[in-house]
């Protein structure tokens, strides 16, 4: 069972500001979903390699050549707060 403080911790990690009511509902729903996920414990998987991907790929390499890329103005066109040639964010570094 996960508790309220676990939900608050995960919410902080994911950068979600949840209201009291949302936190409580999330706790209930996550517990109900996790109870189902816990049924995986019944599956014997000793020595079974994990699969992270459906295609068995090794590294995909290409020549290190400069090719066309997105122009700067197009890359900035959707930015909520562009500044010149930059993406602007709230101050991070203290003065």
């Amino acid at each position, binding site marked *: 069972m996960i508790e309220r403080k676990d939900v608050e911790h995960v919410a902080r*990690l994911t950068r979600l500001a949840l209201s009291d009511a949302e936190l409580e509902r999330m706790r209930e729903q996550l517990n109900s979903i996790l109870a189902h996920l816990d049924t995986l414990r019944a599956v014997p998987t000793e020595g079974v390699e994990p699969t992270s991907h459906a295609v068995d790929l090794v590294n995909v390499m290409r020549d290190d050549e400069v090719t066309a890329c997105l122009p700067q103005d197009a890359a900035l066109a959707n930015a909520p707060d562009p500044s010149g040639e930059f993406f602007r964010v709230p101050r991070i570094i203290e003065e």
Partner: protein
Amino acid sequence: MYRPIHELTDAYRRGDLTPTTVAEDYLARIGKLDGKVGAYLTVVRDQALAAARESELRWRAGSPRGPLDGAPIAVKDVLCTAGVRTTCGSKMLERFVPPFDATTVERLRAAGAVILGKTNLDEFAMGSSTEHSAYHPTRNPWDLTRVPGGSSGGSAAAVAGGLAAGAYGSDTGGSIRQPAAFCGVVGMKPTYGRVSRYGLVALASSLDQIGPFAQDVTDAALLLGAVAGHDPHDATSIEAPVPDYAAELTKGVAGLTLGLPDEYFPDGMDPEVERAVRQGIEVLKGLGAKIERVSLPTTPHALAAYYVILPAEASSNLARYDGVKYGLRVAGRDLIDMESRTRSAGFGAEVKRRIMLGTYVLSAGYYDAYYGKAQSVRTLVRREFAAAFAKVDLIVAPTTPNVPFKHGEKQDPLSMYLNDVFTIPGNLSGIPGLSVPCGFSAAGLPIGLQLLGRPLDEARVLRAAYAYEQATSWRSRRPELS
């Protein structure tokens, strides 16, 4: 309306119809009926008419670009379209206008297709009912009080309702096949890597795959062929030649062995679905297919493994929505506050739930118990399919355990997740799967039969579906919308 693409292009060739009049008819029908269905989020009227006029010139000159030239097509709003907003059904991307086309969209334009617009979906493709779009729900054309399935419900409803001749969606756990079954159309998830994911907004990168919705199997073959194949922009796309799927359709099922997995007919499934699917299997047997029982014992655990792996990948993919480079921004007192306010305002409840779940299963102390375990279960699912496909050519099963449900009927997240219990194993193992209409419930709701094949064996999946379709007449039944 209700003419498959291959019949439209036959009519273009004969000069009986033109791409412009067909595009105008579709746009008029969307204008008249989509208020009821809600299949579209954005309709690109002027672009569609311009593309149709160009197509018309090519047909008139006797030099069409191929079997999709002039075909009116809808695209799920999770595929990037240059200059046309791409919302993913989310407030987070309400004003996002991609600077490039997804490879699928680029290939469609190159094939001369007429893109009508962008279709509705559950937010960020998380859902099985298309009720959870941040804009509006989509309704099932067969019964407007019921859901079209999801997450590609807009694309499925558009094809079923005669609001597009064909469409594309994405399938991460069943998001093409389940709505295809619910809407009585053909829907296919190709092998993972068969279609480039470049420009497909990522949900779970190891599971996502793009595929077509079609009025019949012939169209599905044409729609898949037009977009399949390696793409240097997607390192996970497979470098293998693309067969002429349409040319293979008529080879029949005589001599093929179809596997029937016991685990896909569990207690408690809708008896009407079971009856229709079993009758469909009898039809295939009558056409000369051999039926053999196979066992896929890990099937009941695939859902749980999926609901670890999918949220884990999604929580990571959706970390990019931080209010900096694109999408919504809500001002805050510092960077973290701005990010938290942005994400809380931009994401809906199901997206938040899956981000939370994914972050939890990846967090310190739980990684091995959940994520590692689920990945090992994924291996078992793959191995069982591989063992089955050593004995049989295809697997035949229901697409969904139930018929379309009512809007608002499934409130509990877990009961919604159970809709995808028969489609998820195909994503975990990466194999191709297709849903073809196989009947109706007593209430007139569509039922789908699922065919699963070996990796890259789309041609055989389509060929069996075609044989079944030609032997039955389900596709002649259409919903009445007015």
